[in-house]
């Protein structure tokens, strides 16, 4: 009996077993049997009854409903106590047959069991059941009869149906694959199922069957095993001694819940079930014990349940297998996917980024995934295995990711030096082992035995845990911050320093940039980090360079103009960089007068290079953050750039990539100098014309900075965006003069790093400034041919100066298992991290080759990965006409497609402006995983229904008074909360209804799309009286009506959830070309646009390529 418990997990499995749909035709009985051995017997009768009572089918899911149905049919059956027996034996025989097939599958499929909840699937099962043939047989013939009948039918029919049904049930959309995924999510690994128990069970009854089922076997296996077991048990119990039965049942219940009951009963009930009145059924469900009589009521239940759970939905019919993987039906012939490929069945990440959970569950002390994500948590144990993993292997690190309140990283202060490994310099972490009664600790990365300093000593208890564990966050938490002692300082902690290099040529003034910028900085002065230590300074430039003396004793800043651009010098030794709190009034006076000072400036030149050098001279003593506001192409002095422009003729040639590289080595050289002196550069570019972002961005790339690009900046439109992003840049918590190193265990090594930083030695990243919006990726390779350790550890250490002037070390530690099986690697894969790494590799590739090649490289990697995966399973399964992929990577093809269509990689000459391409590339190189995924597959949400509903409710409100008040109040409040969970729509034109109003949000902008047939009321409410005019001139602002307020609420809610960038709202009316195309249509990644594939085409393309050479 004990063995039964394990079954619960299996429970889900059953459904798989029930291949009813297909079997039906053969004989009703057969189908039930297939579902589960015991089921078959009992089920036969119950089913029959049900089937006959067609009504069930419809009602399917509801147990209660089913029950009633049963009653009528079964009555006769219930009477026989004997039937169970007879049924039992039969079952037993059947069961073995069953098992065998399943077992084989199970071995193949590592997959976890189907979804636990019976609720959903049942319905489908019911429907399938309907087979009329059964009813008569089931009802009329006593259980015995049914048995006899079954054996003949069942064997043949069952095996095939079983698998199919399993898949289909869970996820209708994914034809076959559906179910497995769910199980995955639940995170039931094979191990979950207690294999021994099952085996035991089985073995007793039928040795042959047992062996077949793999011990580790997936839940499926277990499930199947269980079934047989049940059957046996029941049989035994019945035959041997009646009293036993109840007990056994109970046990089962414990494990399974309802199912067990059903299963166990079924045998007994076989005949009886039908009889039991509905009420009785319920009772049974709750507690069997009372039921001992068992026979009657229970029987009914089981049958129903079976059907529900076990029955495979007809959908599955094609070829469900109890696999480990997900699949997509593409029709049997590669070319003919039109028929086979169901658009709605394609996997879509409509829930956003779903992080793999199993990894975190395995190692609880790992740092949170927001800090560190591995592309696959299963580290291959050999190079040959690693070479079969065609996707990038590595990690994406966001060392300062924002933490929700309550999960702050604990701060640790060691009075006498930080505890580190002598050899590899690893910081003490939760995975180190204390030995020798606490006097030594073993480094988890290089396994060297270190001494524990006397003041860090603590006794170790019997289980090897230190007694003071709960007072040592560094030994419990995967993420901690150490206060660094003096050895970690080359100089005293620097103060936060902000230096502004501002273009004041005519275009800057005309676009209104100068004014917005000055206002924003002024409003942020209070919130700059660093309190009284913060330093600030300004330089402006056009064809000359202007310095400002901000000495605190001056009433007004003094301006000094340097026009010698060849030999830049600093006119004043001090006071160009001042303490903000002391010179506050002067700084404010400067910012107030800045826009008016250059109001009439007609200068069109830009001495950017010399100004950059001047800023460098001023800042080099301290380092800090340099914010550059550039409006035109640098035209004077060093670093002058040519209007090399976007030449259509260069596309497709070998020189194509040169336009994406910095033109002048001046910029790279400056960037190197900046990094050396701890200066981070953020570039704000505003021009409507070509400004060579590729060159300017180099400054940000090598100094850990960021590029903000506002093409064609107009203060009236982009004001809010610049304001928000600049103030976030100025006020977010920043880490200064930082260096970062990622250590990892023996045998693996980080070989390359991707992101915005400067590599100081082979593995030390120099980061003059870091903040929560920056992530870094690194690629991993195996150094040794064979890894012998069971676990590989990673440790990210970021040494930085906080804005408050403390030197700290932030340490994130994570462990990952070493696996020997490629399937396991796939199972532990993390699509988000893979895509993040893949995008960085692709963007880097565009700097050395054509766009086309970069796109092909992505495609090739995905194809190779899927092909390898297919080869894993092709042997055991008939896979024709199906594309298979691991559940963990189900979104990989879609994200890959989105990546190919993203700004940096999209199309060719005419598709994206060169500057925009470069800016997007620089941005994507630094984006954390979550933001990147959102950018690649943005949210599309329909809001008009929500708005209308709410406003209707509201009008009711006004009309009806108190009575209605109460009744509406509740729904209304619930609806507002309900909104954020609103369904995201697939990104295709088909999702857009002409009567709808949609919001499209990619993290960087909103597009509000007005359908042609949208009620004019809404439009009028949103944009005012001039709703018929050109939308490019209208902005969405709060108006005094309910709809407008509501939509602003929604937008603000979205903005709040993703504050790193400001989402500027663009209004677009359907059919309003080219605006609609520009803003929205090109971003609908699932559609075919400008020569790029649509999602369905893409999938079939991948499928065909996977097939080739497969």
């Amino acid at each position, binding site marked *: 009996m004990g063995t039964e418990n394990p079954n619960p997990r299996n429970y889900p499995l059953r459904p798989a077993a029930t291949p009813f749909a297909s079997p039906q035709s053969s004989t009703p009985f057969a189908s039930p049997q297939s579902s589960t051995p015991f089921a078959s017997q009992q089920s036969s009768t119950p089913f029959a009854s049900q089937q006959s009572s067609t009504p069930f089918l419809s009602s399917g899911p509801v147990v209660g409903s089913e029950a009633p149905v049963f009653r009528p049919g079964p009555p006769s059956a219930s009477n026989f106590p004997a039937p169970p027996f007879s049924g039992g034996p039969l079952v037993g025989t059947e069961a073995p047959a069953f098992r065998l097939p399943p077992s084989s599958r199970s071995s193949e499929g590592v997959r976890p069991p189907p979804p636990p909840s019976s609720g959903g699937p049942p319905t489908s099962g019911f429907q399938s059941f309907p087979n009329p043939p059964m009813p008569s047989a089931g009802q009329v013939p006593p259980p015995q009869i049914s048995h006899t009948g079954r054996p003949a039918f069942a064997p043949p029919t069952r095996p095939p149906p079983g698998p199919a049904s399993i898949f289909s049930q869970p996820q209708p959309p994914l034809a076959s694959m559906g179910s497995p995924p769910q199980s995955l999510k639940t995170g039931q690994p094979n191990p979950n199922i207690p294999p021994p128990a099952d085996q035991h069970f089985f073995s007793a009854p039928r040795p042959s069957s047992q062996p077949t089922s793999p011990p580790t076997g997936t839940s499926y296996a277990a499930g199947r095993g269980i079934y047989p077991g049940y059957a046996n048990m029941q049989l035994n119990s019945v035959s041997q001694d009646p009293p036993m039965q109840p007990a056994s049942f109970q046990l089962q219940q414990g494990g399974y819940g309802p199912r067990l009951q059903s299963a166990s009963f079924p045998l007994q009930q076989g005949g009886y079930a039908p009889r039991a009145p509905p009420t009785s059924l319920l009772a049974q469900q709750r507690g069997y014990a009372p039921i001992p009589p068992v026979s009657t009521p229970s029987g009914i239940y089981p049958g129903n349940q079976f059907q529900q759970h076990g029955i495979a939905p007809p959908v599955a019919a094609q070829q469900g297998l109890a696999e480990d993987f997900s699949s997509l039906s593409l029709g049997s012939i590669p070319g003919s996917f039109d028929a086979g490929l169901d658009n709605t069945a394609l996997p879509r990440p409509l829930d956003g980024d779903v992080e793999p959970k199993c990894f975190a569950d395995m190692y609880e002390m790992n740092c949170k995934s927001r800090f560190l994500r591995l592309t696959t948590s299963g580290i291959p144990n050999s190079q040959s295995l690693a070479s079969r993993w065609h996707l990038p292997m590595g990690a994406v690190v966001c060392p300062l990711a924002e933490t929700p309140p309550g999960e702050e990283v604990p701060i640790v202060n060691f009075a006498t030096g930080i505890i580190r490994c002598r050899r590899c310099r690893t910081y003490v972490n939760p995975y180190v082992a204390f030995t020798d009664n606490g006097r030594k600790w073993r480094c988890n990365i290089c396994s060297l035995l270190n001494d524990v300093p006397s003041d860090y000593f603590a006794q170790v208890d019997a289980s090897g845990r230190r007694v003071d564990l709960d007072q040592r966050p560094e030994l419990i938490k995967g993420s901690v911050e150490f206060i660094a002692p003096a050895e970690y*300082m080359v100089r005293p902690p620097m103060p936060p320093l902000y230096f502004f290099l501002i273009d004041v040529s005519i275009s800057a003034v005309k676009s209104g940039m100068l004014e917005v910028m000055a206002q924003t900085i002024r409003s942020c002065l209070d919130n700059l980090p660093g309190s009284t230590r913060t330093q600030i300074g300004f330089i402006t430039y056009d064809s000359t360079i202007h310095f400002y003396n901000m000495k605190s004793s001056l009433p007004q800043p003094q301006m000094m103009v340097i026009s010698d651009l060849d030999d830049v010098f600093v006119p004043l030794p001090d006071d160009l960089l001042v303490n903000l709190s002391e010179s506050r009034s002067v700084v404010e006076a400067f910012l107030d007068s800045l826009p008016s000072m250059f109001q009439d400036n007609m200068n069109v030149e830009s001495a950017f290079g010399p100004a950059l050098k001047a800023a460098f001279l001023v800042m080099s003593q301290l380092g800090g953050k340099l914010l550059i506001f550039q409006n035109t192409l640098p035209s004077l002095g060093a670093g002058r750039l040519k209007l090399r422009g976007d030449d259509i003729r260069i596309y497709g040639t070998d020189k194509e990539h040169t336009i994406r590289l910095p033109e002048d080595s001046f910029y790279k050289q400056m960037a190197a100098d900046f990094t050396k002196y701890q200066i981070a550069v953020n570039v704000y570019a505003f021009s409507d014309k070509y400004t060579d972002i590729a060159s300017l961005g180099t400054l940000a790339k090598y100094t850990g900075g960021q590029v903000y690009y506002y093409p064609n900046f107009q203060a009236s439109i982009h004001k809010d965006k610049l304001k928000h992003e600049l103030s976030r840049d100025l006020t977010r918590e920043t880490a200064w003069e930082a260096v970062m190193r990622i250590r990892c265990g023996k045998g693996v090594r980080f070989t390359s790093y991707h992101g915005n930083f400067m590599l100081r030695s082979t593995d030390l990243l120099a980061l003059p400034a870091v903040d929560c919006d920056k992530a870094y990726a690194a690629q991993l390779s195996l150094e040794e041919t064979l890894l012998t350790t069971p676990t590989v550890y990673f440790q990210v250490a970021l040494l930085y100066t906080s804005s408050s002037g403390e030197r700290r070390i932030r340490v994130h530690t994570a462990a990952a298992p070493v696996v020997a099986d490629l399937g396991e690697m796939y199972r532990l894969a993390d699509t988000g991290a893979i895509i993040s790494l893949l995008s960085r590799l692709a963007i880097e590739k565009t700097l050395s080759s054509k766009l086309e090649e970069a796109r092909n490289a992505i495609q090739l990697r995905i194809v190779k990965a899927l092909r390898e995966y297919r080869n894993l399973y092709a042997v055991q399964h008939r896979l024709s006409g199906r594309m298979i992929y691991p559940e963990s990577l189900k979104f990989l093809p879609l994200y890959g497609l989105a990546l190919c269509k993203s700004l940096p990689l999209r199309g060719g000459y005419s598709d994206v402006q060169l500057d925009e391409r470069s800016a997007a590339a620089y941005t994507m190189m630094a984006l954390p995983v979550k933001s990147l995924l959102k950018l690649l597959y943005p949210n599309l949400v329909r809001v008009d229904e929500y708005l209308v509903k709410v406003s209707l409710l509201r009008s009711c409100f006004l009309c009806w008074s108190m009575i209605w008040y109460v009744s509406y109040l509740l729904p209304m409040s619930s609806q507002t909360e309900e909104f954020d969970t609103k369904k995201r729509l697939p990104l295709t034109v088909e999702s857009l209804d002409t009567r709808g109003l949609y919001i499209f949000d990619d993290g960087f902008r909103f597009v509000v799309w007005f359908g042609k047939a949208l009620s004019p009321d809404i439009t009028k409410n949103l944009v005012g009286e001039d709703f018929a005019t050109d939308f490019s001139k209208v902005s969405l602002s709060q108006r005094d009506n309910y709809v407008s307020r509501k939509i602003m609420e929604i937008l603000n809610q979205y903005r709040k959830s993703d504050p790193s960038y400001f989402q500027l709202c663009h209004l677009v009316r359907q059919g309003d070309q080219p605006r609609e195309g520009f803003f929205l249509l090109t971003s609908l990644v699932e559609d075919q646009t400008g020569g790029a594939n649509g999602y369905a085409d893409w999938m079939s393309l991948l499928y065909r390529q996977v097939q080739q050479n497969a």
Partner: protein
Amino acid sequence: MVKLTMIARAIDGLPLVEGLDDGRDVQDTEFYKQQVKALFKNLARGQNEPSRMSIETGPYIFHYIIEERVCYLTMCDRAYPKKLAFQYLEDLKNEFERVYGNQIETAARPYAFIKFDTFIQKTKKMYQDTTTQRNISKLNDELYEVHQIMTRNVQEVLGVGEKLDQVSQMSSRLTSESRMYADRAKDLNRQALIKKWAPVAVVLGVVFLLLYVRNRFW
């Protein structure tokens, strides 16, 4: 001209504050900072240093005062009036004690009071120019007597510690080497003994063997 300013805890040499953008126009800033750190370590070792002292180093001169277990140190040009330098340190001391006086013992991390650097910077500027009226009047002020303050050379000061170190090192080397010598002497003695008697023993052995063999077989 004040070039460098540092404040440290005297008992353990933990740096508490350092002037902002110090050493901008000094050639070997790092070198002098190292010297200062060595100096702090010396002080922390509890050598009986006077609480006020000037130490010459290259073209510059360190001045320091120790008050309430805090050491205030500055580095100036040699030509900079001693009187002003000590006035400057007094100013720092007064402000520092006022603001952080009660937290000095509990400071656990280096540069715990780095915020004080803004005050240092401000004060430094006041002392930058020796010709201002304010500074001239201070120079003429006889209230503060600096003539007795000892001036020594940095090599001397750092040397004291170094020499002591050397002596102890040498003596320890001496003891260990003499022990080694004794061991080796014993060893040699034994070897000499063996050398002396080994041939005799061998000859005797052979003789006895022969005798034994003869007795046995004949």
